[in-house]
């Protein structure tokens, strides 16, 4: 066995061990923080090593496991695409391994079951790693279900709360509808390939109509998991209610596993591209991006805000994938691989900054037991490290240079701007519109995270427990620091990262991006130096040199004193915490401008004694437009079917017999 695969197996074994030792946590609570969580971190480290080794070597290793059904052994395969996602999973798992012990310590005296947390976290990580490693549809689906089911138990972890139970059930339901669609998609592929192995699916030649059916099924299944609009509504319910490090894993990593599945099936297994598919992916991605960020802006619960922003970022990833499919369908291999790499880059970026932000939200929750933005404020002075790391996360997710979010959006823009090379006028005009949507999304994301950071960390505390917040323990800070450092590294050295990731595109499409890194690590030139260039290292050097120079000049010679005083506020009485702008007020102009896209209920209730109360509810339109009608249809169908249920055993036997006869007739 090769090093990469050995390390991958080691990672899975460690995750399983972490899960197994947690069984004892019911008796000895310390096991969770002393053993299970560190093991999880080690599993992440091992997965990271496996991924890096695979990316550097660039080869493909496959083997058959002595597991599975007798005629259907499980097969695993570690290629650069899988290696890339191993890297991504590994880094976030490391951070979670650092964060977990502090969280476990905090709930040791609580009523929650520590064993359940440890067991399912280990299984969750195992499931995700196995999905990426699987080389046949059978193992893929088993691992996929393992991932979905174990995360269901983690979402339902704090099940005393009725809302959490509802969210978990909705999640389970959606995960299974999605799983069914994926299974049917694999069914189509297996029928043409003549086997469940990915190798036979890869060589199968599908006619357009059947490959399109498979595409729709697979897009539906993975899109549902990835939280694409309009199927996203479960995501902001389920992700925030899990413990924060699990939210980080779900939003940061599990959504990426869905992206992985989509890339694996469309780009690798089906292996044919049609512009109709590309345009539909592009359209759904654009709608998800813009709706996701607008709904994120409307949220006042920090973790819900982050969950909606995941919808936005997955939309951006799918914009990149859609662009890649359009370019590949017209034979522009280099541009296709540029867009694919942009999507992959955004995947790893989103894993880093969303993991970081969820861990930051978890640190706030740990320190203040507060998740409502309207109660926060002034946390930067109470929790300086968390404040600094959260700021880095906000800057990265708002796509600001020189951080990592900017690089992937820049690459996506660059590939969209090459639309002039296409022959079809329709495609040429559709792609720039998607780029315009992406631009609007980026600007709104900045507004969203100014709101999140400004309300939570700046200003004055809006409640007593937030005023008394204390810094979180070292483990929590270190986990955020690790991800913040990754955000900076991925942002400042994009050319080196792409040099490493390029092998994924080379292996998958047979064409890489030799131009991107041709100018060395300092310059990023995706198409050619004349077309576009960006130098993040020089940018950050010049930014810091300039800031130091300006500060030095201003402090020399002239007055250097700073006097502390009350806030001026135009000479009114010194402001109190209640006079600050609120999160709702901050979002009001945007709520008004984009009002038609939300379901808003706003009223002012006059109560006794002349007290007026402002009531505002912003609901997701997806509930009314999609979920509720479907739920109603299912319910009315169920009410019709119930008529068959007479309670008479002979009637039931009659139904069974006739069904059997009909089935036999169909088969024969």
């Amino acid at each position, binding site marked *: 066995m090769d090093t990469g695969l050995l390390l991958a197996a080691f990672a899975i074994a460690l995750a399983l061990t972490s899960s197994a030792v947690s069984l004892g946590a019911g008796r000895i609570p310390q096991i969770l923080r002393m053993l299970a969580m560190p093991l999880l971190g080690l599993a992440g480290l091992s997965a990271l090593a496996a991924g890096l080794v695979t990316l550097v070597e660039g080869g493909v290793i496959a083997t058959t496991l002595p597991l599975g059904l007798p005629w259907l052994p499980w097969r695993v395969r570690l290629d650069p695409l899988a290696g890339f996602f191993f890297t991504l999973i590994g880094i976030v798992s490391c951070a979670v391994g650092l964060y977990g012990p502090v969280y476990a310590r905090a709930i040791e005296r609580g009523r929650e079951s520590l064993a359940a947390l440890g067991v399912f976290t280990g299984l969750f990580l195992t499931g995700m790693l196995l999905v990426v490693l699987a080389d046949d549809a059978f193992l893929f689906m088993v691992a996929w279900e393992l991932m979905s089911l174990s995360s269901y138990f983690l979402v339902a972890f704090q099940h005393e709360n009725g809302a959490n139970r509802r969210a978990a059930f909705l999640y389970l339901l959606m995960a299974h509808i999605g799983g069914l669609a994926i299974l049917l998609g694999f069914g189509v592929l297996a029928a043409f390939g003549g086997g469940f192995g990915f190798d036979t699916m890869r060589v199968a030649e599908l006619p357009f109509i059947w490959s399109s059916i498979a595409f729709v099924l697979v897009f539906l299944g993975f899109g549902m998991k990835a939280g694409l609009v309009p199927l996203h509504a479960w995501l902001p319910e389920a992700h925030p209610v899990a413990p924060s490090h699990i939210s980080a894993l779900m939003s940061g990593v599990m959504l990426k596993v869905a992206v992985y599945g989509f890339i694996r099936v469309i780009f690798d297994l089906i292996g044919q591209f049609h512009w109709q598919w590309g345009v539909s992916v592009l359209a759904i991605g654009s709608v998800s991006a813009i709706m996701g960020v607008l709904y994120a802006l409307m949220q006042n619960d920090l973790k819900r805000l982050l969950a909606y922003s995941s919808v936005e970022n997955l939309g951006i990833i799918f914009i990149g994938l859609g662009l890649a499919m359009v370019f590949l369908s017209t034979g522009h291999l280099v541009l296709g691989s540029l867009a694919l790499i942009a999507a992959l880059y955004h995947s790893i970026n989103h894993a880093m900054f969303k993991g970081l932000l969820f861990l930051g939200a978890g640190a706030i929750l740990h320190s203040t037991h507060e998740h409502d933005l309207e109660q926060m404020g*002034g946390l*930067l002075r109470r929790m300086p490290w968390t404040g600094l790391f959260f700021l880095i996360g906000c800057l990265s997710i708002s796509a600001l240079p020189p951080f990592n979010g900017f690089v992937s959006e820049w690459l996506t823009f660059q590939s969209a701007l090459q639309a002039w090379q296409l022959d079809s006028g329709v495609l040429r005009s559709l792609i*720039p519109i998607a780029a315009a949507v992406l631009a609007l999304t980026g600007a709104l994301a900045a507004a969203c995270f100014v709101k999140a950071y400004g309300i939570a960390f*700046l200003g004055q505390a809006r409640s007593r427990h937030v005023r008394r917040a204390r810094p979180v323990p070292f483990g929590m800070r270190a986990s955020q620091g690790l991800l913040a450092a990754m955000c900076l590294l991925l942002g400042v050295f994009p050319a080196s990262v792409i040099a490493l990731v390029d092998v994924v595109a080379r292996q998958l499409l047979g064409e890489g991006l030799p131009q991107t890194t041709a100018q060395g690590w300092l310059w990023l030139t995706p198409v050619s130096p004349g077309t*576009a260039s960006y130098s993040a290292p020089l*940018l950050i050097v010049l930014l810091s040199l300039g800031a130091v120079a300006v500060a030095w000049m201003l402090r020399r010679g002239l007055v250097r004193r700073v006097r502390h005083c009350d806030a*001026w506020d135009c000479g009114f009485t010194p402001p109190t915490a209640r006079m600050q702008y609120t999160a709702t007020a901050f979002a009001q102009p945007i709520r008004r401008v984009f009002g038609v896209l939300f379901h808003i209920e706003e009223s002012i209730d006059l109560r006794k004694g002349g007290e007026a109360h402002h009531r505002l509810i912003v609901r997701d339109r997806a509930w009314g437009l999609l979920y509720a009608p479907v739920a109603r249809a299912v319910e009315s169908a169920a009410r019709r079917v119930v008529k068959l249920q007479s309670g008479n055993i002979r009637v039931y036997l009659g139904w069974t017999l006739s069904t059997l006869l009909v089935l036999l007739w169909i088969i024969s």
Partner: protein
Amino acid sequence: MDHFLNMAPWGLALLQALLYAALGPLLVGWVRKVKARLQNRRGAPIIQPYRDLWKLFAKEARVAHTASPVFRSAPYIVFVATWLAAATIPLVATNLPTAAIADIIALVGLLALARFFLALVGMDVGTAFGGMGASREMLVSALAEPAMLVAVFSLAMTAHSTNLASVVEYHLNSGLVLRPSFLFALGGLLLVALAETGRIPVDNPATHLELTMIHEAMLLEYSGRHLGLMEWAAQIKLVLYGTLIVNIFFPWGIAQSLTPVALGVGLAAIVTKLLILGAALAVAETVLAKMRLFRVSAFLNLSLLLSLLGLLSHIILEVGA
């Protein structure tokens, strides 16, 4: 990138960056002067903004008790990010190494970075006016930024490059060709520039009424050198947008080689163009009235629409031809 290690272009690039910083107050003084004459006032001398800056830098800075470290570091970040963004735009010469560091998308990103910190300091001290300013600024920028990007996309697609120097050179070499997409993009970019630099009809730089402020509301708590840096950054931003417009759409005169004569012509050309643009801005500010906030979205939607029309007309009319 071949001239990367050559020192002379870097020296010129540094000079150009310093020129941006020096031109900022001058342009603002010029606009104020022209505006005053249009209103039958004598107005302050053109160099008044320099004196104001000098006065602010010589004064002691005050910081509220409730301010966080963000408050004291933001002026430096905002100033340097805006300045660096400006330095990547060809001012006098096209062929400078700074232009390759950040293309036009990175330029928009740097301005967004400055704005992010500007909005954060608005919320930092915890006053109502600051939060209000930040909220409005983010609304305006959320609508203006896409319009700006789309406008520059049609230029970038024409020149097949997002590097500003390449766009300018392409335009110079292709001669005087009337392109519908450029006209639309110019319209869109002009409206964006008015909004982003906080001019009438979107924001009023001379207002003293807190409730109508956007940009000034975020700076209310600043004083001394912090305020000076913030003001200077705003002035550089005005030059930045002015240069962007005049050098992309009317690039003639800019130096394409680094000889003293060409550079002198380039300097004279850009100063003349900026003075004309500044006078036009003063006229526009005199004849227009400030809009109320929720009309601004219609104003910026118009600019987005113009930019999109530019992009589509480029794709439909010009690519195939």
